[in-house]
């Protein structure tokens, strides 16, 4: 899952990136509104976190511009503005959630997961066939056998399961699992897929990931 954080306060952006990357998210940071809007428009993010008071273009305006472009991407405000009017104003501008500073990191994390849930998902857990993934604890089970994965392997598997029954192209996988600093050599995906397949096979979930030749990969429910 790839996130964009638009935040001018380096300290906050810094710990957000550290903390979220530990949670296997790919995180990009923009320090002003203009840069943030550019990134939001060019890259395919899964969620955007915006501070209200940022240079160049205000967070509210960035949010409006993103919504104007027709995007339904989850947007969360993370701001020191804490009056009721501010919250209402932010939500009316098109945000999905509003978190006031100072906040607890765990709460932010939980709220991010809520925003990333699919419509037909009752809680955070993901599954495909006998495979079960818990994004909160980063545990993966095949039936009842736990599979130990590296962060990137986990992120890749999570992305594929979240988009199960859909073909995930290599470029989309790159966009959602790696951050902006990754150079777009897609062959690295094939390497990670090989690792993943081996680990799944050992646990008994053999043919879960299927290759669509020349396009990408797919995980099917059945």
């Amino acid at each position, binding site marked *: 899952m790839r996130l964009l954080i638009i935040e*001018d*306060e380096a*300290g*906050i952006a*810094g*710990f*957000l990136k*550290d*903390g979220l990357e*530990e949670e296997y998210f790919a995180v990009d940071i923009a320090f*002003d509104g203009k840069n943030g809007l550019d990134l939001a428009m060019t890259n395919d993010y899964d969620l955007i976190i915006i501070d209200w*008071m*940022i*240079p*160049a273009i205000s967070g509210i305006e960035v949010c409006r511009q993103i919504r104007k472009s027709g995007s339904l991407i989850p947007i969360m405000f993370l701001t*020191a*503005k*804490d009056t009721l009017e501010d919250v209402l104003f932010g939500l009316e501008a098109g945000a999905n959630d509003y978190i006031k*500073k*100072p*906040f*607890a*990191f*765990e709460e932010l994390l939980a709220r991010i997961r809520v925003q990333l849930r699919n419509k037909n998902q009752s809680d955070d857990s993901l599954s495909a066939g006998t495979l079960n993934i818990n994004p909160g604890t980063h545990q993966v089970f095949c039936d009842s056998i736990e599979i130990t994965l590296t962060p990137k392997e986990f992120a890749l598997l999570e992305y594929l399961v979240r988009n199960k029954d859909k073909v995930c192209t290599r470029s989309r996988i790159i966009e959602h699992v790696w951050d902006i600093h990754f150079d777009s050599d897609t062959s690295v995906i094939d390497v990670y897929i090989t690792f993943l397949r081996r680990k799944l096979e050992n646990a008994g979930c053999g043919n879960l990931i299927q290759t669509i030749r020349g396009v990408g990969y797919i995980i099917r429910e059945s």
Partner: protein
Amino acid sequence: MSLRNRIAFYYTVTSAFLIAIVFTILYFMVQSIVYKQFDEEINSEVSEIFSDAHVTSKDFTSFSRFKNFIDDKEVNYRETKHEEKGTAKVDTEFIQLVDNNGLVINKSANLARNFLAFIPAQTKTIYINSSINNSMIRQGQLPLLNKKGIIKGYIIVAVPLKNAVIVLHDLQNVFLFSFPGITLTLFIVTRLIAGKSIAPIKKVIATAEKMTQTNLSQRIELPHHHDELYRLSATINALLDRMQDAFQREKQFTADASHELKTPLAVVKGTLEVLVRKPREKEQYEYKIQFCLLELNRMARLIDQLLMLARYESNKMNPHIEAVWLRSLLETVTVRLHPIALDKEIGFKINGIEKAAVTADPAMLEMILENILSNAIKYSPDGSAITITVEQKMRTLICSISDQGIGIPEEKLHAVFERFYRVDESRNSSTGGFGLGLSIVKRLADLQKIKVGVTSAKNQGTTFALTFPAT
């Protein structure tokens, strides 16, 4: 009682009082004119009697001299009565002679059994109203004097008042009955006019009632005429403008203060939260804790400045004004700032009067100078110079501090003394300030009656001028 009713009430009471006076005067004037005519008639009758009797009022000898004449009158009366039967009303007079004790000597026959009223001991002619047979008469009573001037008796002549009484009575009734009507009408009309003229006040009240602390944007509609109400509305509007402005600034200050306080708090809290989620290397703990300490120091500085500002703004600080040697104070401050200035290779130059004494609170003045100078260092390019000039203009001392820094745009100059205002709107902390330093300078200067001025040219530098009060 509403203002409208009060206006109407006072106006009506005053008018009613005046009308009552006018009515009374009018009534008595008419009455006196009417009676005067009757009195003249009586007079002419008396003189007629005297001339007929060949006497004057001052040579009375005997009542007998009038006898014939009164009998004549009686005859006349009978004749006329006879003639006038069935025709017009008889215009007749009554005559009565009395001695000075009031004993009736003689009287005209038309009086029949009646007597004319007598008022004893009168030395002059008097006119009174009385009645005979329930009809009003006007009578005159003339003293008859002998040659020695002693009153020997009186001649009383009376004429019927007839219509005059009815006229006067009617007039009185008209006045009495019209008075409440006029008063009531006046009250109603005045109330209406008063209501119309104070209608704009109701608008003012309605607008003011709609106003709340959060909604100060309402304004009173100004009336067309430039009268007192216009001025009242304009004054209230101006007051509201000021209130809204102050309220807005207060709101901005609170928002800024909470942003400035919450950001480092959020940074520290978040950093530590992320840090303790997982076991880490010793170096990473040390690095993160150092980082948090820096943030906390910054926060402590901000809290110090906020508290200082709060103390100065509540006016609880009394400056201890004394004579201060400006030059030595400047040297103390520049020496203290020397290490920071050295980092950027910035030099201080102090010019002008060497021995200049100003009246100020030394500690406060030191803080003012330190704030302005550290600002100057912050915004100056490396290797530039900061010039401090002390000069005398008229009777006041001026200390100006000029840097060669980036300058402040003209349109932002006025705001530099506002709390949390930073010319660099991005509020990023790379320059390290909170935008409170100059607000503190302004407050401190105000407390000591020092004027602070600022001029600036883009990319050439900024000059702050402190004008000290004349000694």
